[in-house]
C-alpha cells in the first residue's frame, strides 16, 4: 500500500484510526488554543471593537476653513464638474470678502450617489474639500437623510484633525 506521494505507509498509518485521532487532536488543539488565548482569533467583534482605517482611506467629506474662519470654498464648481456621479450640488452667493468673488450658500453632497473616488479633492484648487475624516456614511432605511448639507460638511471634522487649511491658493 502506497501513499499518493509514493512513500510506503507505516503500520500506524495503515491502521487508519490512529491517524484519524491525530487529526482530531490537531483540531482540538486549535480549538483549545482559540478558547484560551483569544489573540489567535482572526475575527474582530465589529460593533464593540473598531479597527482604525488606513490613513489613505477616503471617507466622508469635510469642508475646510481659512485662518480667519471663513469657508475656503469659492463655489467654482470644479468638484461638481469632476464628479462622475453628479452628487455635488452647489449654489453660490457673493462673498463678503472683496478679494474673493463667490462663496457657497448651499453645498450638498448626496452620499448615496457618491462613489468616493476623490476626484473632487483632486479637482479643488483651494484645498476646500477633503475626504480624510475616516468615517463611512452609515446605512439607513430611507433615502432622505443621505443628502449632507453645508452645515454637516463644515462640522464634519474629526477631533484629531484641524479644520483650518493653511494652503495658499
Amino acid at each position: 500500500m502506497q501513499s499518493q506521494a509514493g512513500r510506503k505507509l507505516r503500520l500506524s498509518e495503515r491502521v487508519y484510526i490512529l491517524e484519524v485521532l491525530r487529526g482530531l487532536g490537531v483540531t482540538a488543539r486549535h480549538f483549545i488554543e482559540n478558547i484560551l488565548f483569544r489573540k489567535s482569533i482572526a475575527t474582530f467583534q465589529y460593533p464593540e471593537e473598531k479597527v482604525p482605517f488606513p490613513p489613505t482611506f477616503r471617507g466622508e467629506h469635510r469642508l475646510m476653513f481659512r485662518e480667519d474662519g471663513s469657508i475656503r470654498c469659492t463655489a467654482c464648481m470644479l468638484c461638481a464638474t469632476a464628479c462622475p456621479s453628479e452628487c455635488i450640488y452647489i449654489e453660490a452667493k457673493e462673498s463678503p470678502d472683496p478679494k474673493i468673488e463667490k462663496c457657497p450658500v448651499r453645498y450638498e453632497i448626496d452620499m448615496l450617489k457618491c462613489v468616493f473616488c476623490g476626484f473632487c479633492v483632486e479637482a479643488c484648487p483651494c484645498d476646500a474639500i477633503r475626504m480624510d475624516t475616516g468615517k463611512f456614511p452609515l446605512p439607513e432605511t430611507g433615502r432622505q437623510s443621505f443628502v449632507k448639507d453645508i452645515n454637516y460638511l463644515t462640522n464634519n471634522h474629526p477631533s484629531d484633525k484641524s479644520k483650518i487649511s493653511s494652503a495658499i491658493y
Partner: protein
Amino acid sequence: MEILFSMAEDFIAWGRDHLLPDKAVELAQWARLSSLWPLTFGLACCAIEMMATGASRYDWDRFGAGVPRASPRQADLMVVAGTVTLKMAERVKLLHEQMADPKYVIAMGSCVINGGPYEKHGYHVLKGVDLVIPVDVYVPGCPPRPEALLEGILKLQDKIRGRKIA
C-alpha cells in the same frame, strides 16, 4: 363572586398582554432577525466586499446572517451587491419573486442605489435597484466597507424588530 370575576378579568388581561399575539409576534421577529439567511448572489465588485464580510475577519455569522443559501426558496435576505445591468435586472426581479416571504433586501453600494459612476453615461445600467424590487436598507459606499455592510445588517435587524405583523 365579584372577586372571582375580577380575578378572571385580570387573568384574561394578563394573558392578552403577556401570552397572546404580542409575545408570539416578538418571538417570530426574534427568530427572523436572528437567522437572516442571505442568497448566494453577487453581481460585481461589491460582491467581493460581501465575501470579505462573510469571511472570518468580519464574519457576519455573528449576527445569524452567515448561511448563504444557493436557492432563493430558502433565503430571507437578498444583498444586491454590484452593478445591476438592465439585462440582469429582470433576473434580480425574478430571484426576488422566487424568495419566500418574509424577504428583505439590502442595496449595497452606489451602483445598486442609483447607478453610481454609471449614472451619467451608463446606457446599460439600472439607475437604482429599487426601481424593480423594494429595498429595506441602503448601504452607501463604493464599495462599502465590510463594517458598513455589518451596520446595514444591524439596521435591518432593528427594522425587523420594530415591525408589526398585521
